[in-house]
């Protein structure tokens, strides 16, 4: 608003939006310069890096974890927290598979048809999300600590029945998605891509998506504006658990078996990707597109470190250092203090 003018006119209000809009769009993409730098660094680091094969590998490797980032971004935007997603990645497919395979292969001997494994797996993920939501919303417990306890419990629910053993005789159905190739690209990339587009559109242009921002930004105001806050939050937790289970399916297909550590330790990377991608830990801020750029940064860094064969001892230092730098760049480019 130009302060020299005495009466506000339509003209003054119409000049501003364009620039603000432009700024807001850029804010999602503060990591793009980082990605460009990484691509250049990678190209110098190893000639293999910029080949299609390698880049497809990077995408495929990040497909499963990116679904977790998508889930966590939704939950964070709505102002909540879910640590237990990482345990669901291993536990949901493991339990679903055990319902189908014979006892000799480590199953429960119930022998459900293999075609039911994926739906069951997603259902288990949804149930875990629903239970989290129940405790957090109905009991008004701290989301951080509930899902921390659930992280431990859900992992225990995989360790217990499998006795820590890897399940490797899996029904074909659960292996398909993570290993198939569609139109020359791994199916996992297509699936993650489609879900991210759905996330971007859903959060940008759908009522329920926008309500996540309202809830995360000020849940009292959202309630007073007629948004069914509890119901939406519950839905987000359930969706998050389901996406984590789907990530588990993709990971299972990629690895060909379900180890007892599947997904363990992912959650830190998931948060790092979401936050450097601009999603606020305080809720109400961030976009799915931003989160996606966060995933890409993490994936490219890992790939370059692998190609350059940085010593395993020093890798964490380089890795953490790059996260810090990305954070600082996204802070400077974004212009706003983070929380």
């Amino acid at each position, binding site marked *: *608003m130009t*302060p020299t003018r*005495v009466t506000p006119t339509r003209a003054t209000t119409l000049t501003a939006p364009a620039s603000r809009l432009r700024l807001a769009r850029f804010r999602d993409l503060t990591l793009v310069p980082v990605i460009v730098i990484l691509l250049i660094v990678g190209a110098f680091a190893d000639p293999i890096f910029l080949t299609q094969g390698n880049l497809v590998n990077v995408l495929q490797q990040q497909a499963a974890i990116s679904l977790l980032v998508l889930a966590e971004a939704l939950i964070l935007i709505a102002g909540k927290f879910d640590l237990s997603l990482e345990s669901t990645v291993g536990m949901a497919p493991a339990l679903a598979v055990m319902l189908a395979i014979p006892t000799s292969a480590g199953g429960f001997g119930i022998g459900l048809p293999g075609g039911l494994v994926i739906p069951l797996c997603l259902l288990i993920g949804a149930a875990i999300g629903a239970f989290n939501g129940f405790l957090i919303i109905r009991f008004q417990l701290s989301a951080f600590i509930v899902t921390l306890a659930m992280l431990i419990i859900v992992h225990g629910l995989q360790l217990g029945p499998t006795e820590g053993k890897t399940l490797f005789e899996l029904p074909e159905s659960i292996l398909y998605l993570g290993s198939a190739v569609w139109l020359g690209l791994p199916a996992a990339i297509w699936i993650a891509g489609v879900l991210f587009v759905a996330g971007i559109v859903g959060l940008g242009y759908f009522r329920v998506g926008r309500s996540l921002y309202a809830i995360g930004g000020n849940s009292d*105001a959202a309630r007073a504006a007629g948004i069914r806050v509890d119901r939406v939050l519950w839905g987000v937790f359930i969706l998050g658990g389901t996406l984590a289970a789907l990530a588990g399916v993709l990971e299972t297909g990629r690895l060909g078996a379900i180890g007892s550590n599947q997904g363990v330790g992912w959650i830190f990377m998931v948060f790092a990707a979401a936050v450097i991608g601009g999603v606020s830990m305080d809720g109400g801020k961030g976009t799915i597109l931003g989160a996606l750029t966060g995933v890409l940064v993490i994936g490219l860094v890992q790939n370059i470190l692998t190609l350059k064969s940085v010593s395993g001892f020093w890798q964490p230092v380089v890795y953490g250092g790059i996260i810090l730098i990305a954070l600082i760049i996204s802070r400077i480019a974004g212009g706003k203090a983070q929380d």
Partner: protein
Amino acid sequence: MKNHVEARNIVKRFGPTTALDGAGITITEGETHALVGRNGAGKSTLVSILTGLQRPDEGEVLFSGETAPALADRDAWRQRVACVYQKSTIIPALTVAENLFLNRQTAHGMIRWRALRARARELLTTYEVDVDAEALAGDLNVEQRQLVEIARALSFGARFIILDEPTARLDGPAIERLFTRMRALREQGVTMMYISHHLDEVYEICQSVTVFRDARHVLTRPVAELPHDELVAAMTGEATLSYEARARAGANGTVVLEAEGLSLAGRFQRVDLSVRSGEVVGLAGSASSGKVGLAETLVGLHRPDSGTVVVNGTKVRPGDVPAALDAGLGFVPEDRHREGFVPLLSVGENGTLPIARKLGRLGVVSPSRRRARAEELIDRLDIKTEGPDQPVGDLSGGNAQKVVFARALVDDPAALVVINPTAGVDVKAKQALLGAVEDAVERGAGAVLVSDELDDLRICDRVLVMFHGRVVKDVPRGWTDHELVAVMEGIQE
């Protein structure tokens, strides 16, 4: 007479917004100086500069002719100026006593809590603030918090005190007590800067007045030399008359909002209420009378222990806000920061939250339709903003309140529930907001208006006075201030 405080040629920008553009103020020692201006004129920004919270981009601040201390030297600032900020500086998790003596619990060594509590109680008694020193500040209501803030600012013993809209959340008796206090301080030679949108208060308590308009200084004059109309003209840049309630056709018959036997333990008991289309029903009462609780229950923010609410012929599930809104209710909550808006979301989105469903099919929200609706609302309520995409968090208080209003009106409600609608809005905005209520009523809505301000209640066809959780009297139009206050205070049935 010496100048106690001087701010010269202050420029302050927030990104694209220029909040102060070469503005200044000069306050003579010992006077109570009013600063007035429309919402967003830059008053609070000047306050944060005068109290050393923000650094001006240009210009300087002088105390008794000396340059202000460095920004980092908070102690030096606090010796020179005390302040009641417009935004709450209460820390909810701490007790009232500790809030009163924040960062000065003790001069050195260990804190003696018992002594601190005693000092706090003494302070609260001195300022006649009826709250418990050991209560958690977070458990106080808005008004009590405000009283605590005022008591704290006055207790510093600073020679210069700033009060940024201290009365926006106080009722009549509390305002009177504040003024008594201010007069006493003035007699002791304390200089004060007083910000308010109630111009009659300015005439009552201040000696001179400075007007800001659009980030600039417009005039400074002794109040005695400035007639009311001229003051308003200076603020708005045009001649404006004070708001006159319109003559309306009155209630036309259909009941649009009805409550029967509504009770909520500790707040109100067995309240019956019926609002007809074309009618504005006021709810008045002194502090803790239960009027806000009742209004919030009508909307569904609280689930009543017993009783029913019928909106526009639909019996709504108790405690279900979306159901009430769907049935045709519009709502302006008491505390805009808490329940009013989502600060990070844009003006457009905040304004259209309840009608998101109508902005597209199958759950889609069309940004262009949202923008169109928002521009219409910005126009209708004269919201001062860069446009529909500006986050509401960046707006000035009064403009944020207009956005909250816009949200209530966006769906052409059959019934409106409006709580303290004009708290902290400027004269012109006040007219716009009250006008908006009357517009809606003329279109056939019925409205419940809860307010501590008698001026607001003048547009009501009748005023229900509440006292300790019960409706004690139904006062028809034509009351005098004195009559109504007497009923509210429980002096007269």
